[in-house]
């Protein structure tokens, strides 16, 4: 018995040592799971292992956590100083939260890197004057709309008349239909009402739009564009919380009006990304505000036959302060606890080359790269061009949106704002609760 134990222990020790030598120069990358981005990154890593990695005698491998609770798992690992991965994920909205567990990659930000990324993209991976990650994927929001329906609305006189009648009746002013690219938030609301069957029985779809109103922090990011276009921000120049403002109230009311008019599915209060895609993808919704990532999925007729060839994308509706969209990048940076930072840095340096990023884009990634790379791959990726363009023109990160408490703020907003939209608390209470919370965390 004892002998067996000793043998087992000895075997384990040998295996560990062997493993350690073999793994000396091998690095592990923790990346964002799923979709074309995962496929693309796998290809880039393979390419690295065959070229630059081989030259440096270093091999990179990928691990993924499930998307549900991804950040919670990574936080536990990073905070405890796990060495399971050398390269880890960064995101604009939580770079401040993870900064204590990461090593900045400032020395990788050479003049050369500007051949790959514009400065604005690198800024989205910065916190307190240090760069923490190489940006790999850009995320923002588009209006996804049904071309066939909007075309008919813009050309059919009966529909136009009905549109005028509905807007007069429900919104108090007679309005004319417009193309989505010219929409203000009022047009957004009006068109949502028009395409809702309970309001307009002639509508060929059940609902005008689909809002994501689950108590989930990512849903607030989608909503943020509306607030920003009304001139809203989290904090003013002096760091004072500016949620109790007209801009927030007007933004909140865009959602509230649509929810109250039931121009969004009755279970929208439990919707997030995937549910909204399901609603739009079954062809029962005229348009929606959605993450840019959805394009790659919705365009696939094998998955969404009902909307094949029938939809298009454009930027978010405009407010008095113009068009705004929340945007962020995901990126890859260095785990502070890693023993192989030099090897990991070699990989990150490779990742930041125009060649690697061109390949990444071609394979389905959505990196925030310079126009030159963008143009080179644009033929196969219409969404890519619009993403780069929209990020540069309309991209918005709220003041405090990269701080250590940003996720907490989003979480708090999600609870209170979804409460308001779904009628469990009133607007004043929601705003007061969020203001109190934010004042508390930003005072620190």
């Amino acid at each position, binding site marked *: 018995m004892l002998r067996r134990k000793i043998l087992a222990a000895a075997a384990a020790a040998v295996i560990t040592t062997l493993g350690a030598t073999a793994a000396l120069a091998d690095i592990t990358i923790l990346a*964002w*799971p*799923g*979709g*074309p*981005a*995962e496929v693309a990154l*796998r290809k880039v890593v393979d390419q690295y292992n065959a070229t630059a990695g081989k030259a440096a005698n270093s091999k990179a491998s990928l*691990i*993924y*956590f*499930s*998307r*549900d*609770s991804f950040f*919670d*798992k990574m936080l*536990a*690992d990073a*905070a*405890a*100083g*796990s060495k*399971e991965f050398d390269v880890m994920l960064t995101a604009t909205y939580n770079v401040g939260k993870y900064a204590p567990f990461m090593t900045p990659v400032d020395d990788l930000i050479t003049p050369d890197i500007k051949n790959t990324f514009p400065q604005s993209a690198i800024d989205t991976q910065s916190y307190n004057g240090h760069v923490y990650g190489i940006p790999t994927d850009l995320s923002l929001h588009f209006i996804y709309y049904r071309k066939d329906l909007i075309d008919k609305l813009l050309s059919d006189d009966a529909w136009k008349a009905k549109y005028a009648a509905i807007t007069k009746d429900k919104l108090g002013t007679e309005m004319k239909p417009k193309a989505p690219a010219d929409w203000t938030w009022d047009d957004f609301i009006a068109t949502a009402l028009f395409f809702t069957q309970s309001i307009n029985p002639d509508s060929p779809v059940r609902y005008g739009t689909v809002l994501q109103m689950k108590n989930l922090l990512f849903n607030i990011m989608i909503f943020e564009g509306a607030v920003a276009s009304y001139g809203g921000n989290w904090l003013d120049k002096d760091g004072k919380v500016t949620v109790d403002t007209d801009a927030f109230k007007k933004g909140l009311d865009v959602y509230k009006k649509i929810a109250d008019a039931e121009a969004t599915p009755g279970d929208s209060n439990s919707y997030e*990304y*995937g549910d909204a*895609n*399901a609603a739009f*993808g*079954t*062809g*029962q919704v005229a348009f929606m505000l959605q993450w840019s*990532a*959805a394009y*790659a*999925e919705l365009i696939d007729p*094998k*998955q*969404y*036959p*009902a909307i094949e060839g029938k939809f298009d994308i454009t930027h978010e509706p405009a407010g008095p302060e113009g068009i705004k969209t929340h945007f962020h990048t995901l990126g890859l940076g260095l785990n502070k606890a890693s023993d192989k930072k030099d090897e990991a840095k070699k990989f990150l340096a490779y990742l930041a080359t125009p060649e690697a990023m061109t390949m990444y884009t071609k394979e389905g990634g959505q990196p925030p790269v310079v126009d030159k790379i963008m143009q080179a791959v644009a033929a196969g990726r219409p969404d890519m061009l619009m993403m780069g363009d929209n990020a540069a023109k309309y991209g918005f990160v709220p003041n405090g949106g990269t701080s250590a408490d940003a996720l907490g703020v989003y979480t708090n907003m999600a609870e209170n704002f979804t409460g308001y939209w779904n009628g469990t608390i009133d607007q004043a209470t929601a705003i007061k609760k969020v203001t109190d919370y934010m004042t508390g965390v930003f005072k620190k």
Partner: protein
Amino acid sequence: MIVARKGIGSRIGQALRWTVFIVTGVLLNLPIIMTLMTSFKTMADINTSPPPLIFTPTLDNYREVLAGGNTDLLSYILNSVVIAGGGALLAIALTFPAAYAMVRHEVGKSWLLPLITNLRAVPLIIFAIPIYLMYQLAGLLDTWTGMILIECVINIPVALVLFVGFIQDIPEEMDAAAKIDGASSLRTLWHVIFPLSRPILLAVLILSFVYGWNEFLFGLILTTRQAVPVTVGATFFVTTYGVKWGATAAAMTLGIVPPLILGLFAYPYIGKSMLTGAVKG
């Protein structure tokens, strides 16, 4: 005359019982039936409204989860079997004697039992960080052993309470008889109480296995590659680019198989009451 009436009555009773059984069976399992159906649908069928009841079944989802290359569902299932099984057996080994001691000898019943039961009420999340740090020191992160130990902790309160409740109901004369023969407590436990407790032992085994099988939080936090359980592994199909409903459903369906097999083996024994026979003897 009377006999005939009784026959009809019991036959009607029997028919009623079957009806209740079928209705309950369908109703309780409706979500699973839907999941099973979804696992055989293409994405196009899934994204059709209203959803078709009749469709051409496809095995693509199973192909994706089993041979997709990027996830290793079978090894997640194996991990789960080992973790849930080990966690359940260890919990039983620890709590069954303890429950016996508490009931028959009144040791610790007044303070230890409530204290342990109470663990169940606390959200486990608060233990996540200290246990993570502890495991990191002990090298238990991402190992079967580590996961078995934590599942065991999770199972202990319920197992203990159920055992205490059951052993209380075993007539004390039964072990008194053994004691007169001079059997030690251990022998009494093993030869008298243990066989009598077979139904509850199997029930606890199933329940503990199921608890371990379903556990998500620690599976997520404490594993990375080697010991990932199927609950966590199946959520790999919930991606940023959308939920792969079909693949998720296929992974879930495959994940039901092991506990189902365990159950089918165990239920016949639960049904046969050992106590009845023993009392008669």
